[in-house]
């Protein structure tokens, strides 16, 4: 992909700098009234240097020291905001003590995660598309989702070398399936690309980034943040568990919604695959990955729940944002 279009002064400065060979200093300061979308896009670009990069950027920028302090600052701000909202949520639901009880280890962890999922009453984009979906809304939904689905499972791959033993083996069972379980035509991100192409949308990686909305950028940034920091491995895996555990039923709804709109079978097939695959991944991620991890590293208990909550919260923000936009239309 090529560098995206800047959305404010900070991303403008970064994009301008990245168009040249790496330098020892880049002027990446912000004005007092910085913009959330500009910040989120800047962080997304900084993270993307570690994934597939940009065709118009020198690959040596990936580890350039000149970029690390701004990346660190944007990551810290995102994490602090999420952690503050998480603690408020725990407080409001009387969960602070039980979640932060390190002595409890993995006891009751799976139930905590199930309760979190069941108490989530945020609106569902899948249900909306089934009941009131139009081809235009489905298209926008797919374009927004493409930012993640075309790199599906990649942010979690960063976590693998940070684990050992049974949790690592279980995570690899999930990842192997995500990458096609040895079948070159079954890689999930490629199944989505095939669905996009059949629908007449671009299947090029990052193609729709210029229209990615703030909650989509933050959803992706949080995943990269959790994946890229060993310290946050608990959050990355908590996020994974809830992502998988909230996928089968909505995927079935989405497959129905897309067929109702006469969208190509290749697209519905992507969601069919996730009904079946994620019913497996959910069980593995909750018990064999998260529970095992916290049994071995009890201090990660609260972080697993933090990642799980972040997954639900960031999806809720995405859903509310798109529904508000569509309702106003």
């Amino acid at each position, binding site marked *: 992909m090529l560098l995206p279009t800047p959305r404010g002064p900070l991303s403008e400065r970064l994009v301008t700098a990245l168009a040249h060979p790496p330098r020892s200093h880049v002027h990446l300061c912000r004005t007092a009234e910085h913009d959330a979308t500009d910040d989120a896009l800047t962080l997304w670009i900084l993270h993307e240097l570690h994934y597939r990069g940009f065709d118009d950027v020198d690959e040596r920028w990936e580890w350039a020291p000149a970029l690390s302090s701004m990346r660190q600052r944007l990551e810290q701000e995102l994490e602090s905001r999420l952690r503050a909202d998480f603690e408020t949520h725990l407080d409001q639901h009387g969960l602070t003590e039980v979640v932060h009880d390190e002595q409890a280890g993995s006891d009751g962890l799976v139930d905590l995660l199930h309760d979190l999922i069941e108490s989530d009453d945020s609106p569902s984009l899948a249900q909306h598309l089934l009941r009131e979906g139009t081809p235009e809304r489905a298209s926008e939904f797919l374009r927004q989702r493409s930012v993640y689905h075309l790199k599906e499972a990649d942010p979690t791959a960063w976590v693998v070398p940070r684990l050992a033993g049974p949790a690592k083996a279980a995570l690899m069972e999930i990842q192997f399936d995500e990458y096609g379980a040895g079948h070159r035509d*079954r890689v999930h991100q490629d199944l989505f690309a095939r669905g996009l192409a059949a629908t007449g949308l671009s299947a090029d990686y990052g193609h729709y980034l210029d229209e990615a909305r703030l909650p989509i950028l933050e959803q992706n940034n949080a995943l990269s943040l959790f994946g890229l920091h060993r310290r946050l491995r608990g959050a990355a895996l908590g996020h994974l568990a809830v992502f998988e555990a909230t996928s*089968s*039923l909505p995927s*079935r709804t989405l497959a129905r919604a897309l067929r109702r709109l006469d969208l190509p079978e290749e697209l519905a097939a992507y969601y069919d695959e996730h009904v079946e695959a994620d*019913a497996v991944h959910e*069980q*593995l991620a909750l*018990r064999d990955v998260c529970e095992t991890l916290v049994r071995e590293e009890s201090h990660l208990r609260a972080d697993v729940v933090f990642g799980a909550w972040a997954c639900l919260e960031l999806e809720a923000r995405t859903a509310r944002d798109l529904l508000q936009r569509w309702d106003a239309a």
Partner: protein
Amino acid sequence: MSAGVSPAIVAAGDAEPRLHECPGGPVLVRGAARVQGDDGSWHDTHRPVSAVCRCGASALRPWCDGTHKVLTQRGINPVD
């Protein structure tokens, strides 16, 4: 299949397939090539781990599709 009854399985290799029952959910099967459904038909699997329905309500039987969670929400024990 119903709770407590093991599915008929054809192993993918020489080793015996390994089964693990998830509380309130499916049975996870590792090392299977084919699994038999309620109606006697055989279904191929290419996954390293497959989830076989135990609640009988999945639309994808013999595979789990997560419907047991809807039963749980309605106060029904899905694998009773």
